[in-house]
């Protein structure tokens, strides 16, 4: 079971480009989206199960927020057509508007703090540097 998900992170949303499944998905600029509805869709469709409640990423899915690491064009193509460990979310299960709302929600998540402003983490930089 371990190996099933170990390599998912590198195979999901970090992919560069895929064939567009619709004209919508290929738009360079993101369509208008509703942050609140996007959060609801993010929760309902289970994006958080792999990418975390705040899109922070984890073992099964990379970070997708704070900031969003890809353009709308790349994201929308990937979500519709991925053939990797992340399954494709076609329009049958996720509408164009829902995807736009999710993108708006992802963009609304504030940037992460610098770890140096968190004393607990900043201390780890120095202790860990005493490597063998």
């Amino acid at each position, binding site marked *: *079971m*371990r*190996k*099933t*998900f170990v*390599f998912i992170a*590198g*195979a999901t949303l970090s992919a560069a480009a895929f064939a567009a499944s619709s004209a919508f998905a290929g738009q360079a600029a993101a369509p208008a989206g509703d942050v609140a509805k996007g959060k609801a869709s993010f929760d*309902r*469709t*289970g994006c*958080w*199960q*792999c990418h*975390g*409640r*705040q899109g*922070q*990423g*984890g*073992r*099964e899915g990379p*970070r997708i927020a*704070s900031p969003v690491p890809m353009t709308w064009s790349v994201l929308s193509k990937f979500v519709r057509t991925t*053939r*990797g*460990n992340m*399954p*494709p*979310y*076609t329009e*049958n*299960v*996720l509408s164009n508007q829902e995807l736009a709302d999710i993108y708006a929600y992802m963009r609304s998540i504030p940037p*992460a*703090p*610098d*770890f140096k402003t*968190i004393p*607990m*983490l*900043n201390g*780890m*930089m120095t*202790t*860990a*540097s*005493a*490597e*063998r």
Partner: protein
Amino acid sequence: MRGNVVKRKNAPTKVSRRKFLSGVAMTGAATAVSVAGEGKAAVEAARPAATRPSTAAAQAELATQSVHVAPGTLPGRPGSDFMVDVLKSLEIDFVFSNPASSCRGIHESIVTYGRNKKPEFITCMHEESAVAMTHGYYKVAGKPAAALCHGTVGLQHAAMAVYNAWCDRAASIVMVGNRMDAATRQPGVPTIHAVQDPGSLIRDFTKWDDNPQSLQHFAESMVRAYKVTMTPPLEPVLMVLEEKLQEDAIEGGGRPLVIPKLNNVAPPAGDPNAVREAARLLAMAENPVIVVDRVGRTAAGVRHLVELAEALNAPVIDQLGRMNMPNNHYLYQLGGGGLIERADVILGLELTDLWGTVNNSDDSVEMAQVYRPKAGARLISIGMGDLYIRANYQDFERYQQVDIAIGADAETTLPMLTEYVKQAIPADRRAKIAERGDKARKGQAQARQRMLTQAAANAWDASPVSSARLSAEIWQQIKNENWALVSRDSSLSNWPHRLWTFDQHHQFIGGPGGAGIGYGLPAAVGAAFAHREADRRLCVNIQNDGDSMYAPGALWTAAHHKVPMLTIMWNNRAYHQEIMHLQRMANWRQRGIENPHIGTTIWDPYINYAKLAEALGHVGIGPITDPKDLAGAIKRGLDAVKMGEPVLIDVVTQPR
């Protein structure tokens, strides 16, 4: 039915229940015939023939005053006392067990004759937990404990834990009680629970089993069992404890019982010619990479691996089957993104899955599979997997062709390999290898900064609590203690391995091996037993919630036996991996993604693990949902653990 005295021609003062029982059986047979022929009155008349003699009759028959026969007692020392002598000779410290009638003889001998010390009888609430405790115990103590189970239903319960130990190359001596003789078994349940061949149930995933039919046979087989389970590849073994041997008096008059001396087997090192050729390839490589899973069989394995890595300045990708290498070493890699693809020589040491290491395999409709190494890259494997294999269960994984396959114990082979590598490095390559080391040192510092940046990004203040935050909060309070993590950390996206410093062999024990759920909690308890005995180390168990509910009684075992341990419940309220599988099915089939939570989540009601733990004798804290409450909860928990209490803190977490 218990005991009697019969005269033995060559040992007049000795007693033998076995001989007496044979007499009973013969009488009983005769009686059965008379029942058919003469009716109830005849049966009543026949019964006195099977009754025990009086003390006076026995003394007269044996010509000695030393024999006293009390009604219903066993004359002489029971066979299970001798079995305890054998366990003591092997320095078995613990017998993890759920009590069972087929083991009542040795159970009584352990707790009374053996004074319940070395071995101590540890009360478990499930046989699966008992075996999992031996599994965790071995990985810390470096020697086996025993599990004691009922021969049929008990062993059926234990089977999954035995499979985990098998896959994880862990030593464990599983003992089961059984009564073969149908004529002396009680009817009903004892007969339902008897079996002709107890070992058949788990023979596919045990290295050896035996069903001794005499005490001398038992002594030799138990010593052999210890030797077999501790010889690489370390695997569980099964010993059947025949009930009659346990319960009958030790027969006198024959040869004296002898407990053989244990001979440990020196593990095999690789063929020198093959090792030399592997060394030559590694020494001449531009980008050698070492991948390890269970090379750190002992602390020596860690030292030997560091020496090899430093001789080559080759990165080491740790698959976390054991504590293989200090994670603050400049050559240590977790995940090792891109290293396999860039390598020209890849050395796999005690890998469970070499194929999965050098191939990407998507769990997708297309099932895309990609061989990762570049063209011409050479593969070398060293491990015991090629020397020992079974057919049925597929834990040997897919076949991967390699350039050099060395069937040997990697830990034992490493010193030879390192020496040959040093000899094979030409003078004009030494500067290049040194340069590789300098680059790795700089890279490690940069990687550390990336990790900490990501930790901060990992929803630092989010509720539920993020894996990075929880890991950092625990580390903050244990880093100056003599600590050990007695669980794996994959569910936390390996954040402990990314933020903590693991530099001692005892600080990490890997995972279940067979991925059988229900291992985590009892294995942690078993490991904590060993840590308590070793140095009263501070044990931290980061416990998956779903796993814990397979056998929560393990918490009671820890409390009952005064095993201090801090359990942090990683409570993501789901069988989370299965959620992802259901999502995948739903998306492939394009018919809605509304239902994957059904059957995969642990909601409605939420489980209150703190209260559960309190009911099982722990200090229960939580549930903690706000990360700001973590520091206080952990401090309170650690204070209690240092006072000898087992503690559980329920932390509601992000999925991974």
